């Protein structure tokens, strides 16, 4: 722990520095690769949609000693088109899933179950979803997504600057696409709870990006005035300075999400908790990556195109000094304790 804490200090002063912004082409290509893979998986394989999106019915009967065969037999007595999927959950549960049913078919199926297994109708956990319901919730989710992106863009443009808003949104879209892509590749079920997860990732990923950008803004405020660093260098320092925080935040966010995932998948089998936390878990990981490796470099790319920043870069190159900061200071500085390159600090003390 102490070593990590010490790292925070070295990152802050610029003693140790990762060239994150400078190497942006590398991160761009990695992300481009992932994005392409995601889009390919989405178009070729598509998402594995859950019951709520396809329409269908799911009955869970709880009774000690139930066997899979009994479940299959009961399901074969359903007066429905298509095949029913029968699963055994835990010791005493059977889940039967069917395609979309009319209300009359659903009632009939429930009657078959109550009479076959001799259980009251109330003890059967039932979920029946109409065939058009999925379209409705998908529509709502997409409206919500668009409204959210617009609102956040406006808000960030006001709170920070328009290019930061754009970079943040690019990072968010990147996160959601890759997360959804992972779902397509692995074939996890997408349920409304998963969608909640996806939407929450938007908030989380932005939150992370906001914290980094706040520091970038602070570091770059007077960057053109003192001509010591290019915009990219100042942004890179900000990313490094917030690196410990980003790591800590991600760990602290993943701990509760991980415990929901553990409990949801381990104890309940399937359902809201598992679906939600799985989406969050993947999304958070991608979100942390993007708030460090995509959003700030992308912002720097945007800003470096401005004539003022290009002029600044030329001035800094002419001085030839500042670039060395990030490279010359090797870890041995802790032994030699050379003079730190920010002399004004003494004055403020």
């Amino acid at each position: 722990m102490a070593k990590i804490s010490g790292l925070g200090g070295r990152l802050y002063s610029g003693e140790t520095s990762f060239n994150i912004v400078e190497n942006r082409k590398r991160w761009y290509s990695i992300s481009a690769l992932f994005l392409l893979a995601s889009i390919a998986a989405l178009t070729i394989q598509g998402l594995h949609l859950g019951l709520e999106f396809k329409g269908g019915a799911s009955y869970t009967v709880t009774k000690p000693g139930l066997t899979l065969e009994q479940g299959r037999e009961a399901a074969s007595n359903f007066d429905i088109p298509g095949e029913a999927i029968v699963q055994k959950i835990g010791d005493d549960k059977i889940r039967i899933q069917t395609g979309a049913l009319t209300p009359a078919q659903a009632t009939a199926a429930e009657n078959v179950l109550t009479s076959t297994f001799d259980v009251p109708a109330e003890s059967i956990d039932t979920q029946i979803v109409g065939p058009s319901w999925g379209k409705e919730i998908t529509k709502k989710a997409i409206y919500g997504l668009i409204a959210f992106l617009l609102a956040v863009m406006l808000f960030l443009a006001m709170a920070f600057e328009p290019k930061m808003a754009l970079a943040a949104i690019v990072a968010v879209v990147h996160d959601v696409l890759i997360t959804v892509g992972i779902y397509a590749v692995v074939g996890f079920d997408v349920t409304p709870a998963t969608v909640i997860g996806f939407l929450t990732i938007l908030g989380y990923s932005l939150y992370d990006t906001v914290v980094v950008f706040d520091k970038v803004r602070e570091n770059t405020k007077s960057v053109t005035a003192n001509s010591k660093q290019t915009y990219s260098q100042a942004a890179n320092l900000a990313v490094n300075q917030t690196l410990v925080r980003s790591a800590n935040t991600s760990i602290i966010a993943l701990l509760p999400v991980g415990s929901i995932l553990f409990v949801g998948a381990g104890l309940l089998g399937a359902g809201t908790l598992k679906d939600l936390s799985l989406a969050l878990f993947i999304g958070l990981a991608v979100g942390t990556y993007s708030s460090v490796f995509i959003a700030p470099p992308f912002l720097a790319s945007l800003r470096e195109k401005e004539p003022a920043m290009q002029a600044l870069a030329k001035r800094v190159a002419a001085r030839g000094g500042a670039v060395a900061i990030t490279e010359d200071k090797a870890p041995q500085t802790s032994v030699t304790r050379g003079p730190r390159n920010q002399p004004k600090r003494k004055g403020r003390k």
Partner: protein
Amino acid sequence: MSTPTKTVKTSGRPARALALLAVILLGLVGTALIQGASSVKLGLDLRGGTSVTLQPRASNDSNKITSAAIDQAVTIIRQRVNSLGVAESEVTAQGSGTNRQIVISVPGDSGRRVVDLVGQTAELRFRQVLAESSGLAGSGLDTATPTVGVTPVLNARFAALDCSQLANQQGTGADSPSETIVACSRTGSSKYILAPAEVLGQQVSKASAGIDQQGSAGWFVSLSFNGEGTSAFGALTGRVTSLASPLNQVAIVLDGLVVSAPSINEAIPSGNAQITGSFTQTEAEDLANVLKYGALPLAFDRGEVQQVSPTLGSDQLDAGLLAGALGLILVVIFSVLYYRALGLVTVGSLAVASALVYLLFLVLGEAIGFTLTLAGIAGAIVAIGITADSFIVFFERVRDEAREGRSLRSAVENGWLRARHTIIVADMVSILAAVLLYFFAVGGVRGFAFTLGLTTLVDLIVVFIFTKPLVTLIARINFFASGHPLSGFSPKSVGLKGARANTSTTTVEA
């Protein structure tokens, strides 16, 4: 943007902020006591019950989906559900404008009945029978001598209609009152060609269930018509009574299905009628209720029906609470390991935040009927991360300032000024997400969005009037100010290697 010049102003009065927090906490406890709220209201997925989500659908051109029609439907469905007499049933429209769903939640085990009751449009019509035959496809081809108003097209549809299929035994409410239609009976045993409707459901003034003690009719529903209905029904019965079978029958059609089609032996001018049809007591009572409160102005598709048994409900509650506890413990362990004594501030802040959230759940449960669902619990657990993150942003900023060589007290004040901006902007984004999710979503998502938004707000409150004042206070304590190795502010953990570091600690390593 705040400027460091305000330092002196904000450092003052930490005690006052803590007192404010105490007032808020006591106020919430007091409110909860006055309301008599002793436990958080749980959603159906945590205690068992049935929820039905209905999606409005325009059944024909004449009834468009309007906001007023949805409001009216909610009122009628609420009356129907209340007629069941189940406590704490709830009927709400979720969404905005015409793009709304109606969500019905009924706790306990009356699920099946609710589902049947609320989905019915209950469009009642009385139509003269033009032709009748057994319900199978192909039957009725030769018996159906073309009557007035029966086109060859309709005749062919009548012949093809197979009432033994379940899909055709399902009420749709889509029959247009001004047209001649083909329809199945409720049981599927017969099919009919029916003349345009002459008496409509809205002309019914009273409806009640009764039992025929002597006869074999069993449970029935008695109807009384209003003035208009009485004369229309009198005219209809008077006209058909002398005709040959099946033209002397009047079909009672509910949601497009024939409930019964009795032969009329004499004109009925009294304005009373009975519907028989081998009902059980429950069916008769429910039908009477449905007719009494009127037909829904819209047809509805069942979007989702979810029935959770009490066993599954309590399992889910346990799992949610376990996950929450586990998440909290892990976050606490991490904070203390990383931030040492400062981590205890995190622990304290999380405890205060949990207390506030719990009290708000209590109070809001009584005030606005807030119920905690599984998705809501997940939202609250996820928010642990967001809440703890505010502290991290703050602490890291304070450390940054300490690295600049400030004393702890001034580092806390300067760090706070900078962290404050970050925390507010970041939390605003989170609240924005929650508010939009809440308005665009339906069902479980709303529960999630609500708790997420609420806990983010609580986070803001806690950071401002608990965490910051507390850190200001402890910065005055020597243990922290001198940078004790366990304080979380030791020069080593901050990464400061200046003169102060050498005097305050003997360990020299990197």
